[in-house]
């Protein structure tokens, strides 16, 4: 059965409408059924063999841009490719620890320089060809490390700009060697493995950058994931069908039998408008939908009468922060740079911000303050001893006075008599950020700081921040990563996203020097406990020096139809711990 049963809870209003409309309606409702059930062609599903089989469907905002995992750089494509392809390792959605995926197990050489992976036995590509260690070697040496391939993820697979050495020992054994110990190695080896037998020729012919595009026939796109691409209709939907040759990763619990994945199909409808997507969910056309805090009120009322529940997973990993331009070469007034370089000034701003109010107004109370550069959700690395800033204007004023600022008629002046007026830039694409910038403007008024909000279009803003450095204060977010080493480009003084003072030749302050040292040490320390200590120290410094004032994060809320099983809110991986365990029959799953 392809069409979902009509939602029994829906009440069709008893309206009197003109007869011709009724006629048209009858005509159309019959023809739509034909359209769905009669004209299915190749994928009419035979009568259900097991109650597990079925289809999950949800809406995505835009079209996938490519089906080539090495080229994908935006989330729609990577989300879809995540169902079709797998890497050697995967991350646990519960605590972020590294688990085997294609690998059966691995051994780490005592030097910390060499990791030997043994692949699972009997792995097959979805076209039936066996997957061997040669595919892994091909994926790294001929694709990710190939300078002719436009792979945006190449950087995470290098140490000091040097690629890993990768070779096959036998069909099931592959070795990775790094020039120096590289702690996040196992996590980074979650990148997708590609089939040599299908892609070697296009790499050789230098056509890889246009291969496996959205125009490629779906049957030619071959992976090892739980699903394979069945059909893509541009602007309309992506349909994925169960990969019968899928081998579940070692150690995955299979509560309903070994035959994974349980679902027959995953259908992603491309609906570019969030309101339309919400209406579709409410009328039973999709099975789950992410809900923004402002939509929760609408859904709460409907939750009782309709067959879904709202799952709240706690704060997301997204990072939203304020930062100041500390770059002495920047084309802004040097006295302003002097304020921004004073730790007490930055701390005073941090004390003046009322995070509770931000959460209540912007996220309807559904959010959490983020104390430092690592979100509390990231339990493996969050340091509980970070310096906390809550709303305390007395402290804020005291710090400003200590730093030599004076208050005159409710306005703040620095030691040489300049009024403290700051331009706060943020990007226009996010209405939430704009509202937040305005609230911050109001929050800094009681400490005499005048903020002028400058909303800019994203490209404009990024040019001003990264290229011309013509900015004073910035409200911005960056994509978060689990391993703290992922923040190295932001926190190392030489990093290109060291926003407050990018690409320093030498650290311009002792604490930046210390942070540099910690990041250098953290990446080569393999022992998890020692490593955690190193990044604890970094979080301590980061929250004391506050070059970036971390603000708040909205709660992640997902509305899920009650029929779906295998659903469980996880702090890091959404409500689906593993896609292959989802079923359309919730009652079968013991939670």
């Amino acid at each position: 059965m392809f069409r979902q049963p009509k939602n029994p809870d829906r009440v069709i209003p008893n309206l009197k409408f003109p007869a011709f409309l009724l006629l048209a309606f009858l005509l159309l409702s019959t023809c739509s059924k034909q359209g769905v059930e009669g004209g299915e062609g190749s994928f009419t599903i035979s009568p259900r063999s097991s109650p597990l089989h079925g289809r999950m469907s949800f809406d995505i905002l835009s079209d996938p841009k490519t089906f080539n995992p090495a080229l994908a750089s935006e989330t729609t494509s990577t989300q879809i490719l995540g169902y079709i392809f797998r890497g050697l390792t995967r991350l646990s959605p519960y605590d972020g620890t590294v688990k085997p995926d294609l690998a059966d197990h691995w051994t780490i050489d005592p030097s910390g320089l060499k990791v030997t992976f043994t692949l699972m036995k009997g792995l097959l590509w979805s076209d039936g060809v066996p997957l061997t260690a040669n595919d892994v070697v091909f994926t790294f040496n001929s694709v990710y490390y190939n300078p002719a391939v436009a792979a945006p993820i190449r950087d995470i697979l290098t140490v000091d700009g040097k690629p890993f050495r990768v070779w096959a020992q036998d069909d099931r054994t592959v070795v990775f060697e790094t020039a120096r110990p590289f702690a996040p190695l196992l996590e980074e080896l979650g990148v997708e493995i590609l089939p040599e037998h299908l892609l070697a020729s296009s790499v050789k012919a230098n056509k890889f950058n246009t291969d496996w595009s959205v125009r490629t026939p779906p049957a030619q796109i071959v992976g090892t994931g739980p699903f394979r691409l069945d059909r893509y209709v541009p602007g309309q939907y992506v349909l994925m069908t169960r990969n019968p040759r899928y081998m579940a990763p070692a150690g995955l619990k299979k509560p309903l039998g070994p035959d994974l994945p349980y679902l027959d199909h995953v259908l992603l409808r491309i609906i570019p408008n969030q309101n339309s997507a919400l209406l579709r969910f409410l009328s039973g056309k999709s099975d789950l939908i992410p809900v923004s805090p402002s939509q929760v009120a609408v859904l709460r009322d409907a939750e009782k009468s309709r067959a879904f529940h709202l799952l709240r997973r706690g704060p997301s990993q997204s990072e939203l922060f304020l930062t100041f331009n500390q770059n002495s070469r920047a084309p802004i007034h040097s006295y302003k740079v002097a304020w921004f370089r004073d730790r007490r000034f930055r701390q005073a701003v941090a004390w003046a911000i009322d995070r509770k109010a931000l959460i209540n107004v912007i996220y309807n109370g559904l959010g959490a303050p983020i104390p430092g550069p690592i979100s509390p959700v990231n339990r493996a690395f969050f340091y509980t001893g970070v310096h906390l800033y809550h709303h305390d204007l007395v402290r804020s004023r005291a710090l400003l006075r200590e730093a030599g600022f004076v208050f005159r008629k409710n306005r703040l002046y620095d030691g040489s008599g300049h009024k403290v007026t700051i331009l706060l830039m943020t990007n226009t694409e996010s209405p939430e950020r704009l509202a937040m910038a305005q609230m911050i403007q109001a929050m800094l008024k009681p400490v005499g700081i005048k903020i002028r909000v400058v909303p800019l279009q994203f490209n404009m803003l990024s040019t001003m921040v990264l290229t011309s450095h013509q900015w004073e204060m910035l409200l911005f977010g960056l994509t978060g990563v689990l391993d703290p080493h992922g923040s190295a480009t932001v926190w190392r003084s030489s990093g290109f996203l060291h926003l407050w003072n990018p690409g320093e030749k030498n650290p311009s302050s002792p604490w930046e020097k210390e942070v540099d040292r910690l990041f250098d040490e953290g990446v080569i320390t393999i022992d998890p406990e020692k490593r955690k200590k190193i990044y604890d120290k970094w979080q301590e410094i980061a929250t004391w020096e506050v070059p970036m004032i971390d603000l708040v994060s909205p709660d992640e809320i997902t509305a899920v139809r009650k029929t779906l099983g295998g659903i469980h809110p996880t702090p890091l991986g959404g409500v689906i711990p593993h896609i292959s365990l989802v079923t359309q029959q919730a009652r079968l799953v013991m939670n």
Partner: protein
Amino acid sequence: MIRAAIFRLIHMGLVILGIVFLSFLMMDFAPGNFLSQMAMNPQISPQVIEALKKQYGLGLPFFSQFGRWVQALLHGDLGYSFSYHVPVSDLIAQRVPMTLLLTISAVLLSWGAALPLAVTGARNAGNWLDRSLLSFSYLSISVPSFFLALLGLLLAEKTGWFPIGGAQSAGSASENGAHFLDLLHHLILPALTLALGSFGVLYRLMRSSVMEVLSQPFMVAARSRGLLKRLLFWRYLFRNSINPLVTLFGMELGGLLSGAAFTEMIFGWPGMGRLMLHAVMTRDLYLVMGGLLMGSILLLLGNLISDLLLYFLDPRVRENK
């Protein structure tokens, strides 16, 4: 006449070149490019961005970039989309039929309804039908199309009569009658929304034009001679009142590709508008240029066609030349 048409065609070519040059220039002036989004990603280094820039030819000076594009264009090559990694012409060819299906049905609906209603309304000016149609057309002019579209979706959700968004039920991909009916079912709401939006203008324009012609002395003369009603209507009334609408028709032709963007977004209709909006937002240079080129060609063609129509319909235009 033929000389004039050829002259017009040459003129059109120059106008298109101008449009294309200016848009290319503006895309170049605007800060950032397709790679700016990546530049803010902590996982992607400036070296990789630099390498991508070279591969995409984004680092070149403006004139060589533009020159290359025009040269390729003359060979029928619209270039390559950065985000989809496929030729722009493929992407546009995929979307154009769907947009045309939507906009042409909407044009047929609105013209098919507005013209006869306007004639009836003008002949019975002031009665209840005319007055209610007039107020309806005010409403149609003043309600923005995206709002109408949202109302349409709400109707679909509350009643379940229509699908909510999309253009096809998943799975109805085989080419047969059922597939076509499924498509029609999805088409109704967006086409109605678009048609309602343009109904008001059409109705009011046609109504006032018919009323003006009705009051002309030649109409009185023709009627007093006792001409056949049908002849009177087609040859005298309709033909004389259609002139202002012919110009409008040319403009509607120009909007066939780009005029439905809001409606497409809200109904999830897989057309050009959505593709272009996304392309502009991600600064997918050649895709934007390809879309602009198609749009401007259509606009100029629309104008040409409406002028030609006027030439054939109205002897006064012919004599002026």
